């Protein structure tokens, strides 16, 4: 019963740590609620106790810290969309945030929630993958940093321990490359869960690809980097031959399934088409 659920409202970080140390995997962290409340309303998942961190303002910030842009885990999508720093350095993170739900969800949903909820369809996740983000994680035992690309261990599984809390996402400015692209394909422009979501972060030099990172969601048990496609594309000139090879390799990198939102075949075709289109734009822009 919903009326039996215990909620502890965290007033500061140490308070949250001690709750987590006590409840561990018997409890659940509640951030903006845009995923958890859906499970609760559908009665598909109800934890006996929740730690409410909505008002943990220590974790709600976007700031420049030397070579890094640091986003507190409780930053909402609206915070990201409105942040001049993010707009300047990481426009594709703004693009991704704008595709999440609509205003009602963007005002409540948090990036920490998007990351920890660990859905393979999380809209911001391919962006963090191509920026090689670092996650700062804390507990009463101390803090540690985990590369975003090592955070997921399987479908909806992460390296987060039951007593740990995601604190912030650190983005190294050197990973913001000149050409950033983001594309989400869903049933409609707003309020859709992605069928395929792609972020590409790249640079070119004298018509050749100098550096490229490709992150894709909704095509594997976790968000992934298309590493075979990336290594092939390095030092390549973009032409019909390299485009064909890249889209062939992309099919090896991904492992989509048929589900309620789409089919494996559709996802494969669309992922390959988006890759081609972004690379063709890249060739155009770097000419």
């Amino acid at each position, binding site marked *: 019963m*919903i*009326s039996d659920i215990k909620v502890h409202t965290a007033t500061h970080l140490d308070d949250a740590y001690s709750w987590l140390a006590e409840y561990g995997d018997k409890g659940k962290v509640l951030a903006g*609620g845009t995923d958890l409340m859906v499970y609760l*309303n559908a009665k598909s998942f109800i934890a006996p106790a929740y730690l409410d961190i909505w008002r943990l303002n220590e974790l709600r910030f976007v700031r420049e810290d030397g070579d890094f842009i640091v986003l507190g885990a409780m930053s909402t999508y609206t915070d990201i969309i409105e942040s001049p720093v993010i707009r300047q350095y990481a426009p594709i993170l703004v693009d991704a945030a704008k595709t999440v739900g*609509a*205003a*009602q969800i963007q*005002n*409540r949903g948090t990036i920490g929630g998007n990351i920890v909820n660990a859905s393979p369809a999380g809209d911001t996740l391919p962006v963090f993958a191509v920026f090689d983000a670092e996650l700062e994680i804390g507990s009463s035992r101390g803090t540690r940093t985990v590369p975003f690309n090592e955070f997921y261990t399987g479908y909806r599984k992460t390296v987060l321990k039951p007593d740990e809390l995601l604190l912030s996402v650190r983005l190294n400015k050197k990973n913001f490359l000149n050409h950033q692209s983001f594309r989400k394909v869903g049933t409609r*422009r707003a309020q859709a869960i992605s069928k395929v979501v792609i972020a590409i972060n790249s640079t070119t030099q004298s018509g050749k690809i100098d550096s490229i990172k490709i992150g894709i969601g909704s095509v594997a048990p976790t968000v992934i980097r298309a590493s075979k496609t990336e290594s092939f594309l390095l030092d390549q000139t973009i032409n019909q031959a390299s485009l064909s090879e890249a889209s062939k390799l992309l099919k090896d990198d991904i492992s989509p399934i048929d589900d309620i939102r789409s089919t494996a075949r559709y996802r494969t075709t669309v992922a390959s088409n988006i890759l081609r289109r972004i690379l063709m734009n890249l060739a155009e822009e770097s000419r």
Partner: protein
Amino acid sequence: MRIGLTVNGQKRETDAAPMKRLLDVLREDLRLTGTKEGCGEGECGACSVIIDGEVVNSCLVPVCQADQSTILTVEGLAENDRLSWLQQCFLECGGAQCGICTPGMLIAAKTILDSDACGSRSAIREGIAGNLCRCTGYTKIIDAIERAVIQNR
């Protein structure tokens, strides 16, 4: 837990389970039934209310997270039994049909009116992208909001 809210300018208090949806507290405990439940999963926007200036789906907000906040529901739009200009525009433009989406549409439209957004039709579409309507085809709703925005300037 004891919950204190300022709803439509009035201080209200009630006892509620912390994970009870704000939607249910408004409708059942405070008897403000203007706010509707559509999908109960954050897709349709029928339950939209404004908390501390931000539009949210009240079906996705546990009431513990709304404690001590300021809330505007559709009942708070009219002043002294006179429809607000926005509501008048919905009426005149045929922006309401069956009525289920209307409270949420009005609340989303209110945030468009209150924002610095330019009020173009595309900005209005974006502002109500989280609100589904199965009757109007949206055109008349957008006409109504556009009219309200123009008059507001």
